[in-house]
């Protein structure tokens, strides 16, 4: 008979029993994937720099006149010109730019053609004409702007994001094994929520998906626990919130064993990753990609949120600490993609609430609008895209304090990514409802052209 000590003792014996279980589950997964067209694999990795990265100090003009305009705007926030890391080539009109001095890794990615810089991108209802009424809902507010960067719908509050709508189309409501094509390292998010689908949340630790202690672990106690949990989950819950909770718990329990077995069976990556949260998240993403056959997927999106970018104060010190982590993480991830042979099949891109004011508040910068972004991957055509505005307080794009109105919409940015992932032009407007305001989905040319 069971007693508590025995119950607990057996709790600790997961190691051996777990290994047996993993291999049998893995074989199931492998069997399923034989028919999958994994050569066709493609994935998007969305990085959210939450809080609003001050990207005018990430990508800085190097031409003398524009650097001076930059310095006049930024006063105590200006980076010294001689510290900027030069980027090869030039943007529209032959303008030259440099990166924040902490981003040597990104500099090498860019100059090697593996990364592109997207200039002055942001949320828009339509191309900006200067009409004060035609601005996004809740402009300059974190919650609304993060949401709109994820929904790509700037005139509504919406719970569904464009990654979720992609999954609605490419995957449908019920992935065979309960594991969504949309995988989040940072919990629930709007980007990956669709009408029929939600994200599968994992952590950067271990094999990503924690399991219920000793559930179904091949011992009599494991069987007991399985019966005890399954019976509870079998109870019908008519209340709408209890029903949702029951479903989430059920899905988590069902999917976890397959997922962690698949991840546990992946060969160790030889690419080293830094200990930062960002790098470790990217490492876990690489491992999930490595398990794509066992998971039976050919299309995936990944989401990782890196917080702490709302630098109303200490922007210089904070960015000097934080931007190198982004730069290093990107290089490590690129190396891992090369190791896995997925370099051309994975595109990584940044998002953020907004850019920030070019002017200073004496210690930092405040909420702005348009900002600059990074796209990385083997499919990326290097260089500058969009228009880096000519910095000038008299510019019609300056809506006050150096808050520049975007010259490229997030819709165009994401259309390029969605088409590349495999959304057909005819489905583009259901993924990006406002795309027609910026780009004709059937057009011969790409929305921005940064992907091959």
């Amino acid at each position, binding site marked *: *008979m*069971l*007693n*508590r000590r025995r119950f*607990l003792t057996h709790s600790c014996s997961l190691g051996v029993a777990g290994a047996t279980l993993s291999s049998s589950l893995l074989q199931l997964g492998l069997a399923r994937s034989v028919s999958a067209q994994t050569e066709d694999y493609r994935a998007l990795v969305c990085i959210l720099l939450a809080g609003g990265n001050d990207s005018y100090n990430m990508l800085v003009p190097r031409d003398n006149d524009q650097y001076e305009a930059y310095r006049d705007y930024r*006063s105590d926030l200006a980076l010294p010109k001689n510290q900027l890391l030069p980027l090869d080539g030039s943007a529209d009109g032959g303008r030259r730019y440099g990166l924040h001095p902490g981003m040597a890794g990104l500099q090498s990615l860019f100059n090697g053609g593996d990364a592109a810089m997207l200039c002055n991108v942001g949320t828009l209802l339509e191309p900006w004409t200067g009409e004060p009424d035609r601005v996004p809902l809740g402009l*300059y*507010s*974190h*919650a*609304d702007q993060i949401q709109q960067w994820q929904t790509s719908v700037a005139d509504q509050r919406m*719970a*569904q994001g464009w990654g979720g709508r992609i999954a609605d189309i490419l995957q449908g409501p019920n992935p065979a094994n309960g594991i969504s094509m949309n995988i*989040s390292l940072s*919990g*629930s998010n709007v980007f990956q929520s669709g*009408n*029929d*689908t*939600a*994200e*599968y*949340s*994992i952590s950067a630790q271990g094999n990503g*998906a*924690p*399991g*219920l*202690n000793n559930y179904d672990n091949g011992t009599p106690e494991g069987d007991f626990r399985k019966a*005890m949990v399954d*019976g*509870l989950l*079998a*109870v*019908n*819950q008519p*209340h*709408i*919130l*209890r*029903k*949702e*909770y029951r479903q*989430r*718990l059920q899905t*988590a*329990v069902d*999917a*976890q064993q397959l997922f962690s077995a698949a991840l546990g069976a992946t060969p160790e990556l030889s690419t080293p990753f830094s200990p930062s949260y960002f790098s470790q998240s990217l490492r876990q993403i690489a491992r999930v990609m490595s398990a794509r056959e066992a998971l039976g997927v050919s299309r995936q999106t990944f989401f990782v949120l890196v*917080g702490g970018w*709302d630098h*109303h104060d200490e922007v210089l010190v904070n960015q000097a600490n934080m931007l190198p982590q982004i730069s290093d993480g990107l290089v490590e991830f690129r190396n891992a993609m090369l190791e896995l042979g997925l370099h051309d099949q994975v595109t990584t891109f940044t998002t953020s609430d907004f850019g920030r*004011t070019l*002017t*200073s*508040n*004496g*210690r*930092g910068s*405040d909420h702005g609008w348009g900002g600059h972004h990074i796209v990385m991957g083997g499919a990326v055509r290097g260089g500058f895209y969009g228009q880096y505005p000519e910095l000038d307080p008299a510019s019609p794009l300056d809506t006050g304090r150096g808050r520049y109105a975007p010259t490229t919409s997030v819709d165009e940015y994401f259309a390029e990514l969605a088409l590349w992932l495999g959304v057909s032009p005819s489905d583009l407007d259901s993924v990006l409802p406002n795309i027609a305001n910026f780009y004709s989905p059937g057009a011969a040319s790409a929305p921005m052209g940064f992907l091959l």
Partner: protein
Amino acid sequence: MGAMTRPLTLALLLLVCVPLAEAARLKGDEAASRLASRATFGMPYEAILDMADTGERRWLRQQFKTPMSSHDAIVDELVALQNAGLFDELLENNNNLDRVYRRLAWWHTTMTAEDQLRQRVAFALSEIFVVSDNLVVLQDYPYALSNYYDMLLTHAFGNYRDLLLAVTLHPTMGVYLSHLGNARSNPDANTFPDENYAREVMQLFSIGLFELNEDGTEKLDKDGQPIPTYDNTDIEEFAKIFTGLSFAGSNFQIRRNTVNFREPMQMYDAFHEPGKKTLLQGEVVPAGQSGLEDVEQAIDNLFNHPNVGPFFSKLLIQRLVMSNPSPAYVSRVAAAFNGEDTGVRGDMQAVIEAVLLDKEARAEPDKRGQAGKLREPLLRVVAALRQLKVFSPDGFYANTGLIIQENTQQHALSAPSVFNFYLPSHSPVGAIADAGLVAPEFQITNSSTIVTVSNMLEAALIGDVANDLFRAPFTAAEYDLSDFMPLAKKPKKLLKRIDLVMTYGTMSGKTRNHIRSTIGPIDDPDLRVRLALFLAYFSPDYAVEL
């Protein structure tokens, strides 16, 4: 058959119509247990019976008079013990002990304090007026967060206007939203006042983004669009108001030896933006006032905005009672906020009473309905510990909550951003969004955390873990299962008691049956009881409170 069906349909229609008139009120022990679930951090069996004897309204009034338990005072004691060398051995392995003093204070007080309602309301306020040790500098000073919490406790039963002013002037908020050390504009250097606090005090702490009706619904313009409450010019004007504040006694200089988290920020007029400013609804702040007069006028300007009643009332209902209050419920609480009966605007006691004693809050729970809310994962754990009378042999319940935070993604004053752990508008895709409902707590309830929370409850109840700091001089806390052990061999009665204490009669019959049949074959009475408790805490019936 056709002839039979029609009267039946009519009868059904009548049945459906009857409850609309007035839902019956939940009464007796079950009503007390539900109030405990909302207005305290959890109550054990006997205390629930006492609350039922006292009656809901009288219990609230008693709580309003119960003296406040200070978190700062606990930190004081811990600092004194450290200075006396009592933690020397502990510190050899952990030189950051002072970073968790405020956490130890929160846990000990939450677990043991008599002023449960005040503590519970302060916790709700901490999720509205958010500061967080996610900003690491706030971990460096042990009083930064305990003193902020004390400020919330102090004003929890006071007036919202004083609360908003105290939040605004608290140095912890000043650091968190960067208006501490915010200086007047300097045209020569092309610098402007920091807009951070100006924005969030409006968006999150007082009026919200859009004009509201008294029932909390958004007003619409002639095109059917919501009407913004402020624009960016208003933000720039309010940013000027919140200049010149810094640590008390610092002369505006921020250095290690000027840090002072135990007094409100002081106004340094030389650094305050001079000149006229314009507030909301055209109110003018004349030139020549002192900086503090400017701040007080601006706080009054916000306090008197018609949005505050419905905006704040709905947030408080969501934190304490249910995710989707009807407009009528919001409107009744907003009326209490507006002082329509008492003549006092912003009276927190009146608002709390209106939230907890409203007829919609007190209606009999509908196990097939939509009312209620997902329990916050942290509160789920705390309630289990309190309901099972966890106690520490030495009288001090020592828990840092770090393990619980790792597993639940939640801890007091540790939100990832000023937007708290979840947005009040979070609407999970699927049936909930389709029904037009919100369920904020689901934002941190995903395939990962739903499992880790369950495992942690198991480690607590089966593994007998009740706190995470038990090295000397602290001790391991213990469960007292005496309310349940006598029923170990009477599964039906055991489940009835569990249902009363945890789910006040809303546990489904099938869940109860399943738990009974699960524990049936187990002989060890201790394991029987613990398994039954664990399964109850694990169940969707408990996770969602109706």
